[in-house]
């Protein structure tokens, strides 16, 4: 099993370690309650070094990414990041990623830990001449500082970054080493992500300890999961995978159909005409109970879908989750019932998440 570079350090303070997608990492540092409160009201820091980081560069890099990603990479400006999908020929989702454009022919991509070998193989199988694909996951650390106060904490380490727009970033220097700092995250609130591009253990520890000393709360993957569910963000491997297309996963907004070509485009054109039979939807419990993966969702007495992830949201004090439902039910407040271990509990469909960023 892989382990994140600061695992030994975290082990001294963490409450629960565990495995995620083949990585030994931290599930909880203190309690979900405290960690969640920090992220929503102040700032928390996640060690997300398990995520796959890939450098894609060379004269053919843009053309190559234009082919394997669903977004228009040519229109992406240096210093900007975008969310994208990687599709197979049938339009199935191989992964969801973010891509940061360093210069016109150089990119940094973050993809899921779970898909690491599959994505790298896919990229290599489709690679063009004059493109270099480098997996830098194990030579770097990756942290997410998230929460309404994150801007001032991150600025106090790397200089003023409060002017960054959402999904904008730049390089900053700590100990003669470059960090990519982007205003981004997976919690639905404001936040920054810091990726080290050189340096070793000593630098990673220095960055982490800096935030510890400032009082930024260390947060584990359990908290990250609750935050992303509240924000309505699906998780690859949990809510969708290669068996799902962007229509089903509710991620079609990340597909630029007017782009001349990308892998999976033809399949999507065919699928678009038919429309999906199920779509990932948000469900808010109106009665007690926490929606858990596999719980069935009913409309009246008719089975209509299934929960793929859920939590007890501290924001509303009720259960909230993601479920596959017929697209016709995508009406805010639509009444459904979730079968909570044999007991049908009233819930409603939501078309908006519990938190979404008013973009800085």
């Amino acid at each position, binding site marked *: 099993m892989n382990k994140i570079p600061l695992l030994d350090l975290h082990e001294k303070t963490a409450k629960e370690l565990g495995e995620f997608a083949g990585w030994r990492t931290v599930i909880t540092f203190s309690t*979900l309650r405290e960690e969640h409160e920090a992220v929503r009201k102040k700032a928390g820091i996640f060690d997300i070094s398990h995520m796959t980081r890939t450098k894609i560069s060379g004269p053919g890099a843009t053309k190559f990414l234009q082919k394997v990603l669903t977004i228009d990479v040519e229109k992406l400006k240096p210093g900007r990041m975008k969310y994208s999908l990687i599709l197979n020929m049938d339009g199935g989702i191989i992964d969801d990623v973010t891509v940061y454009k360093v210069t016109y022919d150089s990119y940094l991509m973050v993809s899921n830990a779970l898909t690491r070998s599959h994505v790298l193989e896919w990229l290599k199988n489709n690679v063009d001449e004059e493109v270099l694909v480098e997996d830098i996951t194990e030579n770097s650390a990756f942290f997410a500082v998230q929460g309404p106060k994150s801007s001032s904490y991150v600025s106090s380490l790397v200089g003023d970054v409060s002017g960054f727009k959402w999904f904008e970033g730049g390089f900053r220097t700590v100990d003669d080493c470059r960090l990519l700092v982007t205003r981004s995250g997976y919690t639905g609130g404001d936040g920054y992500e810091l990726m080290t591009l050189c340096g070793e253990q000593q630098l990673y520890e220095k960055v982490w300890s800096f935030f510890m000393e400032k009082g930024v709360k260390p947060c584990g993957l*359990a908290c990250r999961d609750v935050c992303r569910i509240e924000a309505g963000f699906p998780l690859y491997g949990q809510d969708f995978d290669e068996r799902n297309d962007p229509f089903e996963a509710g991620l079609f907004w990340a597909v630029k159909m007017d782009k001349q070509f990308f892998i999976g485009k033809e399949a999507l054109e065919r699928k678009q005409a038919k429309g999906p039979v199920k779509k990932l939807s948000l469900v808010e419990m109106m009665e*007690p109970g926490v929606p858990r993966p596999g719980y069935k969702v009913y409309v009246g007495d008719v089975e209509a879908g299934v929960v793929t992830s859920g939590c007890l949201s501290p924001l509303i004090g009720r259960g909230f989750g993601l479920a596959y439902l017929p697209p016709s039910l995508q009406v805010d407040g639509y009444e459904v019932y979730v079968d909570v271990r044999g007991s049908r509990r009233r819930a409603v469909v939501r078309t908006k998440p519990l938190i979404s960023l008013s973009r800085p």
Partner: protein
Amino acid sequence: MSETYEVPDELLYTKDHEWVLPEKKHAVVGITDYAQKKLREIIYVELPHINTKVHAREVLGTVESVKSTADVLAPVSGRVVEVNSKLLDHPEILNESPYTEGWIAKIELSDPSELEKLLDADEYRRFLEELEEEKTEEEM
């Protein structure tokens, strides 16, 4: 890495990790230290309604932790006369104090002889040891 579990002498136990404190015609029930440690951080508790009649081994309530859900089974039959409604707003009490502050319900016994079928503290301790041994064997 072996964890230790608190097992107070004065209580009775079930193999499903509930505890019982007999009080004349009543019994106070809750979940054991082992149960709360296995569940980890408890985020939500569902309690029975007062006056509900329960049979031994029927679902009395539900405890949700960050990652899983567990039923609390009634260790004895009877009528629910009190519930610890403090748990609704502060489920963390179940982690902090499973044997005192974290009691779940008080049941008026319909068949006090059922108490004899429960484990005493020594029996429950041995049962936990067996569980841990099985777990170690599985890991090997």
